[in-house]
C-alpha cells in the first residue's frame, strides 16, 4: 500500500430516516473510521444526510444484468460454498433515469457466500430481477455505520450553512432589486 493509494470504500448515504441507503460514490482511506469522515466531507457538504455506511470495495460482489446474461455460469459458483450462513445486504439499480445515486439498499439475505445470496435474491420475486440493471451484494460484517449519536455533530453543519445552497441566492441578474448591503 503506497502513500496515496489507500483501499477504496464504497459510500452509502441515507437522506432521511424513512429512505433506504443509496450508493453515492467512493473514498480512499486507511480504515473504516477515516472512510466515514472522508465520506462526510465529500458527500454530505449539504443536506440531506442522516446516516452513512462505508464498505471496502474489495468485499462487494457487483454484477450487471448484462454480465449475468453473458455468463450464465455465475450461479454455479454459489453451489461450492461451505461454511456458516451470514447476512448479506442486497442493493439494486432499477432505473435508467438521470440520477446522482447508483444502487439502492433493498433487503438482506442470509447465505453462505455472496454468490448464493445473489442467486437467492434473483429468484425472489420481491427483488423484481426483471427490472434490475445492477446488483450489489455486501456482507453485513464489512459495513461500518455512522453512529446515530453523532448524527447532529456529523451532518447538521451541512444544513446550517445556507450560503452553500443555490436556493438561498434567489434569482440573480442585472434586473434584480434589493441588492443586500454587504456587512
Amino acid at each position, binding site marked *: *500500500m*503506497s*502513500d*496515496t*493509494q*489507500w483501499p*477504496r470504500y464504497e459510500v452509502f448515504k441515507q437522506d432521511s430516516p424513512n429512505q433506504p441507503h443509496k450508493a*453515492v*460514490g*467512493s*473514498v*480512499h*482511506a*486507511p*480504515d473504516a*473510521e*477515516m472512510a466515514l469522515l472522508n465520506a462526510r*466531507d*465529500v*458527500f454530505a*457538504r*449539504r443536506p440531506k444526510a442522516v446516516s452513512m455506511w462505508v464498505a471496502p470495495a474489495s468485499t462487494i460482489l*457487483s*454484477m*450487471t444484468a*448484462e*454480465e449475468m446474461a*453473458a*455468463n*450464465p*455460469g455465475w450461479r454455479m459458483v454459489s453451489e461450492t460454498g461451505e461454511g456458516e450462513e451470514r447476512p448479506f445486504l442486497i442493493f439494486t*439499480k432499477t432505473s*435508467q433515469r*438521470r*440520477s*446522482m*445515486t*447508483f444502487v439502492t439498499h433493498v433487503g438482506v439475505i442470509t447465505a453462505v457466500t455472496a454468490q448464493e445470496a445473489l442467486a437467492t435474491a434473483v429468484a425472489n420475486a420481491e427483488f423484481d430481477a426483471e427490472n434490475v*440493471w*445492477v446488483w450489489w451484494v455486501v456482507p453485513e460484517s464489512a459495513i461500518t455505520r455512522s453512529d446515530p449519536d453523532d448524527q447532529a455533530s456529523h451532518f447538521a453543519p451541512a444544513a446550517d*450553512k445556507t*450560503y*452553500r*445552497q*443555490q436556493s438561498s*441566492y434567489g434569482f*440573480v*441578474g*442585472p*434586473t*434584480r432589486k434589493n*441588492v443586500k*448591503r*454587504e*456587512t
Partner: protein
Amino acid sequence: MIDSAPEKKLQEFEERIARGEKIEPGDWMPDEYRRQLIRMISQHAHSEVVGMLPEGAWIPHAPNLRRKMVLMAKVQDEAGHGQYLYHAAETLGISREEMLDALLAGRAKYSSIFNYPTLAWADVAWIGWLVDGAAIKNQTMLAQCSYGPYSRAMVRICAEETFHYKQGKEMIVKYMTTGSDAQKAMVQDGLNRWWWPMLMMFGPHDSDSPNSPVLMRWGIKTRSNDDLRQEFINEEIPEVLALGLTIPDPDLLFDETSKTWQIGPINWDEFWQVVRGNGPMNAERLAARQKAHDDGRWVREAVAAYAEKVASSKYASGK
C-alpha cells in the same frame, strides 16, 4: 461464457446507448470508449483540483466574513468534485494514484483557464459567473452522458455549481449597481482579462476537435463545442452589457436575422500555448500542487500509522 463476435458486441453496445441505457462498470464497452472516458474524466478531475488554486489564493483576502465563508465553501466543493470524478475514472480500471502521478509529473492536462492568474478580488466573482457558468453548460450536457458513473458525478456537480455561479454573479451585480468607481473599474478589468480565456474553455472549433465525432457517436458528448459556446454567449452577453460593462471584442455584434451574438476570432495560438504548458501560471500551479502533496505527507503517514495501531490492538484484544 458466450463469446459473441466483437462486431456483434459493438452493435449491442450501440443499441443500448441508442435506447438511452447507461453503461455501468462491468458492462462490455469498446476499448476506445474506455480510453476516451479515462482521458476526459481524469482531465476533468484534475481541473477541479487545480481549480482550487486561483480562488484559494484569495481566501485570506476576502473583503468580509460572509464572502470568506462562501469562498471557502466553494473551494471545498471543487475538492469534492475532484473526488467524485477520480471515483468515476477509477471505475474504468485506472487507479487514483496513476492519475495523481500523471498530474504531479506534468503529463496530465487540465482546463487551460486555471493557468491564468487571479490578480484582483473581482476575478473571483468572474470565475464564479463566467468560468463556472461555462463549466455548467458543458457539465449539464455531460450529465446526459452514456457512462453511468460520469453522468452521476455530473448531476451532483451541476447542483453544486449553480451556487458557484450565483455567488459570483451576485458580486458583479452588486459592485456594478451599488459599488464605487474603483470597484466598477476592478470588475471591468477582470472582464477584460477573463473574457477570451473563458470562451476558449468550450474547446476548439468543431472542425478542429478530433475526438468529437467518436464522443458524440457513443453518447459521451451530445452537443458540439461551438454549439455550447454559442448558447452560452447568447445567454450571458445581454446580462453583462445590461450592467454597463464593455465586452473586450471590437467585432462583437448582434445578428438581427439569426437573433444571435457574433464574436470576433478567438486567438487559438494562445489556447494551444497554454494547453502545451506555456501559459502564465502552468509552472506555478504544478508547483503548488506538488507542495500541497509534500506538505500533506505527514498527515497521510499519521492516519496510516493510526489505522495500523488500531488494527493491531484489535487483534491483540481478540475483537
